[in-house]
């Protein structure tokens, strides 16, 4: 529920206050590439140009490569160190689709199994959501149960209503961030009405739509339809763009490196699109391209719902927008063959 608001002019001050306590991460553009990176304590121009990042915010918790342990050869053996990282950070400007994605990866790394490296970063991070009113033509979040202006997956949710942002306080951690600040005002009824209008207009802007109802059952029934998978995978070139830049893909690989007596164990992104995926234990069970393509679709829309009750696609559209061959997952979902057998629960 919207309770507070802040004037846009005060954002720099607000971020400045936060930046004294912990590091503030904002959308940053370098060489045309937008990603979440440390704020320089002055530039808030991103509020004008920012639509979404190229590298998804998952990189803040699951960096592309990170040191798990470092080791050094000494005369009397190895000196081993595990990096300790407990510094607090605030990510400002995460979009609802990406916030949902973080919640989805949380289930993998921080819920059922507690991954030290992921959760030490995650539990020290507050997410400040920013509503999205300028989606790309590849975005289809409304088809995956995400509202571009609303999120329960953040600590605070900011929504642009013109000269001001209205704020929803989602968690106590988020609430506490606003307590000390004099720039935060109470939202009026008029603000809330304005927000309603913006919300409706923003949702309306999402033109790309795909019916994801029953898609898990459809996928189940056409899992062995090799013709279909061969046909839709034909143009895929098996690069890692869609998976690396997917906000919910989390596959990783672990490698030891040693150069000149210094070494480290690294964890880095891996991708099921690669032909060499999982070659390290033995072989890749998905040698043919269509199997790898099928895996990606099924993982998002069949296996996740089966295991965790949620689609692992949040409709951010990165995989469509950045694909070298315009492989479009919505077309593949929409084109799934076969009738869904109607399960009558009645």
């Amino acid at each position, binding site marked *: 529920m919207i309770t507070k608001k802040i004037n846009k002019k005060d954002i720099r001050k607000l971020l400045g206050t936060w930046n004294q306590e912990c590091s503030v991460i904002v959308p940053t553009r370098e060489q045309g*590439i937008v990603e979440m990176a440390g704020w320089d304590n002055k530039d808030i121009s991103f509020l004008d140009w920012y639509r979404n990042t190229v590298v998804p915010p998952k990189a803040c918790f699951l960096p592309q490569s990170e040191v798990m342990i470092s080791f050094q050869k000494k005369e009397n053996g190895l000196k081993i160190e595990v990096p300790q990282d407990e510094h607090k950070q605030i990510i400002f400007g995460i979009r609802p689709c990406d916030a949902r994605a973080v919640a989805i990866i949380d289930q993998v790394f921080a819920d059922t199994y507690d991954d030290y490296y992921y959760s030490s970063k995650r539990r020290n991070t507050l997410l400040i959501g920013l509503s999205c009113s300028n989606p790309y033509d590849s975005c289809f979040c409304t088809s995956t149960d995400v509202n571009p202006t609303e999120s329960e997956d953040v600590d605070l949710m900011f929504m642009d209503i013109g000269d001001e942002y209205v704020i929803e306080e989602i968690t106590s951690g988020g609430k506490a961030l606003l307590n000390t600040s004099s720039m935060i005002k109470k939202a009026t009824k008029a603000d809330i009405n304005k927000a309603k209008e913006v919300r409706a207009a923003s949702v309306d802007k999402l033109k790309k739509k795909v019916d994801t109802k029953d898609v898990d059952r459809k996928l189940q029934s056409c899992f062995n339809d090799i013709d279909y998978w061969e046909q839709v995978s034909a143009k895929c070139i098996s690069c890692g763009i869609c998976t690396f830049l997917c906000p919910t893909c989390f596959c990783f690989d672990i490698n030891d490196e040693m150069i000149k007596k210094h070494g480290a164990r690294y964890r880095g992104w891996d991708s099921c699109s690669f032909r060499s995926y999982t070659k*390290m234990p033995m072989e890749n069970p998905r040698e043919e391209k269509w199997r790898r393509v099928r895996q990606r679709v099924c993982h998002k829309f069949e296996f996740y719902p089966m295991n965790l009750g949620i689609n692992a696609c949040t409709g951010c559209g990165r995989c469509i927008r950045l694909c070298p*061959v315009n492989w479009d997952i919505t077309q593949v979902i929409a084109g799934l063959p076969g009738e869904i057998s109607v399960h009558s629960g009645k």
Partner: protein
Amino acid sequence: MWLKMFEPSGPTTCLVMKVSDMEKELRQEAGKLLEEGTVDYIIGFAPGSLKFTTTPLITEDIDEINNLVINPFINNNLAKYLPEIPGRVGIIAKGCDSRSIVSLIQDKQIARQDIVILGIPCSGLVDLKKVEKLAGKERDKIDDIVVLADKVCITAGGEKKEVPTTEVLFDHCLGCELQIPKEYDFLIQEPAAEIRDYESSSKQIQELKKMSPDQRWAFWKEQFGHCIRCYACRQVCPACFCERCFVEESQPRWVSPVSQWQDNLIFQAIRTIHVAGRCTDCGECERVCPVNIPLRSLSKEMYDLVGEMFDYKTGMDVNAPALMTAYELVEAEGLIR
């Protein structure tokens, strides 16, 4: 002049691009090939799902032939698919694609008799990143791009802008050396507009060469700090046809799979050297890079290097031996003592 024929009339209609005479001719020919059983597959371009995009079409279905398009956004180098597609294949080829096809034949990756090349003249492709910069708007916010031989009209947010065509074409197109395929089985008989700007085509390379070695190394070090090792550059490259790439070798392990600038740089440097004499400067590696590393400033330099040292132009002569399999008794003097 096919450029004139491309006149998308708005955001929604440009997804269904106007059928030009060339497209008609192409569809007819491709349809005939499938129908008569001359080929098992046709590889071409279809409209993409997003504005100003196209997508590779690989089909054995005659009904899909009507989706074939020709326009200034047919980026992909379709030769990439040839080694992996079984049977006989009809492939639509721009000049650069045809060079890659020839190079694959030279390298004995495909057999000439299995391929039917449908050549199309190409006047250059539109680099959307350049258009975005000129328009100050991102691709999906641009309403219309009309490409003429001498100028391009960009309409975005009600504003219309006219710029010389040389300002929106890909750098590699500005330096194109083969607009009309030399090797083909069927060719659409249209001239291509000569739109060139050799200077801007390799502007960054010239700038890099003015730097000291240290500065150049620092430049690449910085660039490869951005690399995410998605391997899109390799995967999209027709010259990269190895069954197994050296980066994936584990015994011995040449390059660390961990993304760090050192290994990212070594990967790309070796990739560039390995494809020396196979690279046709089609520019795909740079176009697909999701983090905007100027990869063509590597590949084009290599392209020029082998051109200067061995007087070799990739993919121009189907009967010539591949660069690295051949030699002259005396060459490259003065570099080895």
